[in-house]
């Protein structure tokens, strides 16, 4: 393992299927999905005896673009999982899953309208969350969406302003940007190049999906190996974010690879990160 200060910590989003290879020498980080770890009757910590350099807790229901900040019970439960597992960061998605506090959940996040009002609400919620988490850094993830709402600015502008005004970390899901760029016909490289300078610190997600012929959309299903186009975009993102990429996590939720598949994919993630440290 290369422990140079500039190499990001690298690992998987933990699933039962990849636990057996979490001791691979290429792995020194893990992402815990909060909703999986938050078993009210748990006795042991979710990480069990894994000892890693970087642990991040990934939440699904902070709903940062909602009109109201998340409630205390949810924040406290998230904080408890972060503390139990020695997490140095917490993350969630740039989107909304619910309306108000006593309201309803849609079941998945939708992107906010790219408007000033949504930006104000999002920044205010992020500030609230960051205050609550103190030294545990909060990252906001760019999501893959199937549609957008009418807005007054581009997504890249929205994300850049959000990062600048809150100082939160950017969880750049490289595959999500690739999916959105494919589906909504914009340049993924330009998007990353324009947002990256506004981020103080960065985490990345990598995953693989498929192109759905019926809807003519790239679906970020986390069910396939990482495609070549995403590997290229990952390399570019590392170069753009050199010196401020803290961690990279691979997400896989379906059609799991065999042991060799798990190991080779994460080794490639590390190899590319180590190569990207050396300026061209």
């Amino acid at each position, binding site marked *: 393992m290369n422990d140079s200060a500039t190499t990001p910590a690298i690992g998987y989003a933990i699933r039962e299927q990849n636990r057996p290879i979490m001791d691979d020498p290429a792995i020194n980080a893990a992402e815990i999905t909060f909703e999986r770890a938050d078993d*009210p*009757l748990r*006795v042991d910590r979710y990480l069990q005896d894994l000892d890693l350099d970087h642990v991040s807790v990934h939440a699904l229901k902070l709903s940062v673009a909602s009109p109201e900040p998340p409630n205390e019970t949810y924040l406290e*439960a998230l904080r408890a999982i972060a503390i139990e597992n020695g997490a140095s960061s917490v993350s969630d998605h740039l989107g909304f899953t619910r*309306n*108000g506090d006593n309201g309803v959940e849609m079941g998945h996040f*939708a992107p906010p309208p790219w408007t000033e009002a*949504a930006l104000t609400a999002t920044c205010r919620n992020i500030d609230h969350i960051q205050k609550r988490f103190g030294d545990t850094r909060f990252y906001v993830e760019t999501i893959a969406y*199937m549609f957008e709402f*009418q807005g007054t600015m581009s997504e890249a502008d929205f994300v850049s302003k959000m990062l600048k005004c809150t100082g939160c970390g950017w969880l750049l899901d490289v595959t999500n940007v690739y999916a959105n760029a494919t589906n909504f016909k914009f340049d993924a490289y330009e998007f990353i190049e324009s947002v990256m300078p506004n981020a103080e610190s960065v985490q990345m997600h990598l995953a693989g999906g498929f192109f759905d012929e019926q809807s003519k959309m790239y679906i970020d299903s986390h069910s396939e190996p990482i495609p070549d186009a995403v590997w290229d975009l990952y390399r570019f993102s590392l170069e753009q974010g050199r010196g401020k990429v803290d961690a990279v996590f691979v997400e896989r939720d379906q059609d799991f690879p065999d042991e060799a598949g798990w190991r080779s994919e994460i080794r490639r993630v590390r190899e590319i990160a180590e190569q990207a440290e050396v300026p061209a």
Partner: protein
Amino acid sequence: MSDNILMKDYAEQLSRIATSLAVAKNDVVHGDVAAGQSCELVEMFTSGNLDKRGDKLDDQLEMFAEDLEELPSLISRYIREVPLAAYDTGTSDTDRFVRWLPTVIELTPEQRDLVLVIKSRFAVEETGRRNRLGHVRFQELVSLNDRLVSELESNDGLRIHLNPMRTRAVFETGLLIGEEESPEAGVEVLFFAFQTEVRTVILEPEGRALVQTLSDIGPCHLASLKKQLDLTTSFDDESLMEMLTDCSEVGLIAFS
């Protein structure tokens, strides 16, 4: 426009979008979708979300499958009528489903018992959620049960604790305990947490007295427990020891 009005409009817009998409009323948001983007994709979004919600309910309601033929159609009606609640947890939607069920169909006594199982399991989980430390501490004590149970009769200083993560239910029928006849007074069952699972024990009158006493005066020494039980029941020493041993084996009580 002032900031306040902008924010109020935004809150209204998001509320309208979330409440309609939560139950797949897709047309409501067609006017909000960005120009040139297909509203069919909104439908794809909501149907994917509802499918996931339905699959989860299907899984968690598996025990109903045999006794409730119309379960699939009820699930699909429920997810279109009752939106997922904010901060839904892994099992809260199933708990809400079984609370909704009697409002739309008349349940048989057997089905009411199945509803009670789901509600009780959820109630134990919620007790754990509210008192995490209590659960973890009690499970630490339970891990010593094998060793300490042998000291029951010899160690006067041993204290007996009742599992705080528990809830009581009375079944109307014998279905869930494998009996054809429905006992007249019902079947009293205690649901309690053992590590990450929820276990059940049937409470006979002696067991009920023991649980009630421990709940009233516990944690307590064996001597106090005996004294209290003597006042209220006709327990003999031997059956008390047997019952305490059984309860410690399943994790309903622990010692310190």
